């Protein structure tokens, strides 16, 4: 094979390794690997068996495929006869200003909007009543102003979503209006859902993505102080929550008592806990192979050595986005090599290339990690658990993927392999089993 061709093949492989989630049907078709089937099935079971107003919390590490999975889950539930409304909170509300009231308002707006878009024949009168309700605010003058501003011909829902997203005063007005009357807000959600169900004979399921990306203080305010209000509509809702919040003992009790189930998308584990730190620990092969398959879909077999492929997968710690990132970095190194020495037409992703790629990514990992946390990391490594689960530092490490949560019968914790590597290098951990 001639070298320019090989270069192009690495280019293609690196393009195949896009970090952003698979949402386009064509991409999904080309690259999907049955992954986290178990979680998908569990989520399905939980939702199917949940009460008609059950609230389900879905959580997991950043970059382990939550959005991709929720997207598939929404499709499955539609097939199973639910009226599914799946949206990202980011599309609805300005991020700094998310609170329980505008989340509920967004649900209502999304419900009516989806019903309209899908041409569900809710009677005009009901629809007009509901539309008018969206514009009723505490201040009469503001309401009049809104009604004046809305003119026939513009898309009601886009217009309102735009206001919710961009206008502080609008959000403030909505907050003032419903602060003391949340029950009315949730009753209206019920009314819209009922109208939909009457016509379609389908139960409504709302799935809200990206709530896990809010700043932690904002999340706390929502789930600590206003969880009952947030969970008050009588429909099924799936909420996404950051894993560090689920693990925060102060919030966990609240969450557990208010919701039906917490479903975790855990990181793919490659070892059982007793094998994890052994020099030649026994692998959980099917899991390793699933992640290998994800890479194989994206890069030709002859461009990467099998042994290296396995190493690469193991170094990802089971986090999908980190796997893809490392794969991309390897392609990049090969492209550089080919660019500098075009004659080197036999280059593959081998141990040397991987070592260079790992070095790059390790440095990026180290950048955000304060050295004051090394000691804690060492302790977690030794114990497979944090000394104190309430320690905010620990929750922060979990949030930043330095510490990964694995699930057997019990939960256990381990460091991300690149962090283990880093600590070996820093002589915080004894120098065994160096990766690169």
């Amino acid at each position, binding site marked *: 094979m001639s070298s320019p061709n090989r270069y192009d093949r690495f280019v293609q492989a690196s*393009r195949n390794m896009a970090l952003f*989630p698979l949402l386009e049907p064509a991409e999904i078709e080309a690259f999907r690997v049955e992954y986290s089937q178990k979680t998908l099935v569990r989520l399905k079971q939980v939702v199917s068996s949940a009460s008609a107003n059950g609230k389900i919390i879905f959580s997991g590490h950043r970059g382990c495929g939550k959005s991709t999975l929720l997207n598939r889950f929404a499709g499955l539930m539609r097939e199973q006869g639910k009226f599914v409304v799946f949206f990202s909170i980011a599309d609805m509300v300005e991020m700094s200003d998310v609170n329980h009231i505008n989340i509920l308002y967004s649900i209502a707006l999304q419900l009516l909007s989806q019903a309209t878009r899908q041409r569900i024949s809710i009677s005009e009168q009901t629809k007009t009543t509901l539309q008018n309700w969206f514009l009723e605010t505490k201040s009469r003058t503001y309401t009049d102003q809104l009604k004046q501003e809305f003119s026939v011909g513009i898309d009601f829902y886009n217009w309102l979503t735009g206001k919710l997203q961009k206008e502080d005063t609008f959000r403030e007005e909505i907050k003032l209006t419903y602060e003391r009357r949340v029950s009315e807000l949730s009753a209206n959600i019920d009314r819209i859902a009922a109208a939909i169900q009457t016509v379609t004979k389908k139960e409504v399921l709302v799935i809200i993505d990206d709530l896990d*990306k809010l700043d932690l203080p904002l999340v706390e305010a929502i789930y600590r102080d206003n969880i009952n209000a947030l969970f008050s509509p009588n429909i099924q809702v799936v909420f996404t929550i950051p894993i560090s919040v689920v693990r925060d003992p102060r919030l966990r009790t609240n969450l557990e008592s208010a919701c039906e189930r917490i479903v975790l998308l855990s990181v793919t584990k490659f070892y059982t806990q007793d094998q994890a730190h052994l020099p030649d620990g026994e692998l959980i092969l099917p899991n390793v192979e699933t992640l290998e398959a994800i890479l194989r879909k994206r890069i030709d077999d002859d461009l990467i050595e099998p042994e290296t492929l396995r190493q690469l997968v193991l170094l990802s710690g089971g986090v999908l986005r980190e796997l893809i990132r490392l794969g991309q970095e390897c392609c990049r190194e090969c492209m*550089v090599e080919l*660019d500098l020495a075009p004659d080197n037409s036999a280059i593959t992703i081998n141990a040397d290339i991987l070592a260079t790629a790992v070095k790059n990514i390790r*440095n990026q990992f180290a950048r955000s990690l304060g050295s004051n946390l090394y000691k804690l990391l060492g302790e977690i490594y030794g114990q497979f658990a944090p000394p104190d689960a309430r320690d905010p530092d620990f929750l922060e490490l979990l949030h930043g993927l330095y510490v990964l949560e694995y699930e057997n019968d019990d939960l256990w914790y381990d460091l991300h392999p690149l962090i283990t590597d880093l600590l070996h290098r820093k002589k915080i951990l004894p120098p065994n089993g160096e990766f690169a």
Partner: protein
Amino acid sequence: MPTELSPDNEREFHRLLVSLQAIANRLDLFVAICDDRNVQAAVIERYEATLQKQRITPYQVRLSQKRPSLRASLEKLVAQNPKLRSQEKAVVTVLGGNELLGVRLSEEKSEQEKFFFSLQWTREALREFRFPIVVWLSDAVATGVSQQAQDFWSWRSGVFEFEGTTPPLPSPAFFPDQHLPQEPSDPDILTTPTIFELIQQISEIQQQNFQSPLLVTLYNDLGNAYRKAYKQEQALKTYLQATDLAKALKDNPGQAKALGNAGVVLYNSGRYEQAITFFQQALEIQREIGTQNDEAKSLQNLGFAHCASGQYERAIALYQQSLKIQREIGDRNGEAASLNGLGSVYKSLGQYERAIDFYQQSLAIDDRNSEANALNNLGNVYRSLGQYERAIDFYQRSLEIDREIGNRNSEANTLNNLGNVYAALEQSDRMLALYQQSLAIFREIGDLDGEAKALGNLGNAYVLLGQEKRAINLLQRSLEIFREIGDRNSEAIALMGLGNLYASLWQYEQAVDRYEQALEIQHDIGTRDDEGLSLFNLGCALEELDRHYEAAESYQQALAIYKELKLDHMVEECEKAIARKN
């Protein structure tokens, strides 16, 4: 003259380049990290040139300091360049991330914090953009991003770290157990030991009492030392530390001093608007505690900042106020400075007679320093008026005083100005000799800003001599220094100089590019008269390229600015150009 890259940087460059060449029409986030703006400029220039050859269009966009949001900047860029919505391959370079301040000025959030915050919800916020972006960040800002904008950081497709050519100074962390380097690592050996000693002294006093009132003074001194070494951000940080401590200790004079100093640093970095808020705060305290001479000084500083940002009328009012106080309390030095300031505003306004009047008044004050200053300024006006003999006479007299009282800085400046006259007289030998002398002094006293200005003028001189290649080298070097020390105003002027040079070589595309870069800075920092000039020059270059519509637009914009500034002589020039177009 692209800077040579070190082997490590060369490797990083290749990593970045292959990544950019491999892009598809989709969003990819590349983070480039560099503390050396010259290396940064060289890398960008190289990859943009390479990409262009491969029909990938490079675009640049700069984060606004007032509203540092990646999304807002990209939206603006797309609105201006609808092609970015098409299938055309493009790479967008995002600049300005390394100029964001990490310290909080008056707002609740620092510029960096605002930027980090704007990066949350990356996927949702940026998904409408179908092109890869290269975000340039300083090391510190990159670390901030990785810690405080984790969502953005987790979407990065690649990180490219470029090392600087000069090792950065150790940043002062005021903890008792701070490890201090034994050897100064900065080339500026004249000032570094002072910084080093001050840090040591501060650290010792902190060990005894973390809130010792002495620290206010020491912080102010350390800030000054950093400022002299052109470590603008460190100076600013230190002054703000002084401000906070002084506030806590209710040391009002110390606080006012620190605020004023911080204003000066901001002024020197071309952040006139922010400087104004600091001078204003200092002024308020000084009024409260009744230190009139300081109050006048703050008014004067406010005058400088307003003048620099084209707010001439306000500047005049401020100088009048400072003048009044100085006359009341008999501060002759201050009076001379205010008079000189007034003269400069009128000179900017093209009202040379009035300018001369004020300079003459200042000259009458019996203080050698002010006298030299006034003589120099008079020389400048007469040069602008084309009365070269008179200008030379004034400069010579100024030079005598400079030498007499040993004011090296002023001497170098005067030599430089004298060189400008001989340039106008086309006496190239004399001109060259004068610039060389000026350059030598600036280098001797370690004044980087002066050195860069002298290099720039030397560059202009070689244009006159027809040695363009040499000229480009010198102007480029001068540009690099301005970038290094963060003097954005001068950076823009150097870019204008390069634009002029390319125009004189009939390389109008290059000229347009430099004028546009200059414009962007001038627009940002608010040097309105320079912005007008860049627009005017841009118009000329566009005209040469037969881009008549754009040229006319450029002249119109220049005209609008000059009308607003009431710069009648330039209004006339613009009207002539527009008439020529019609």
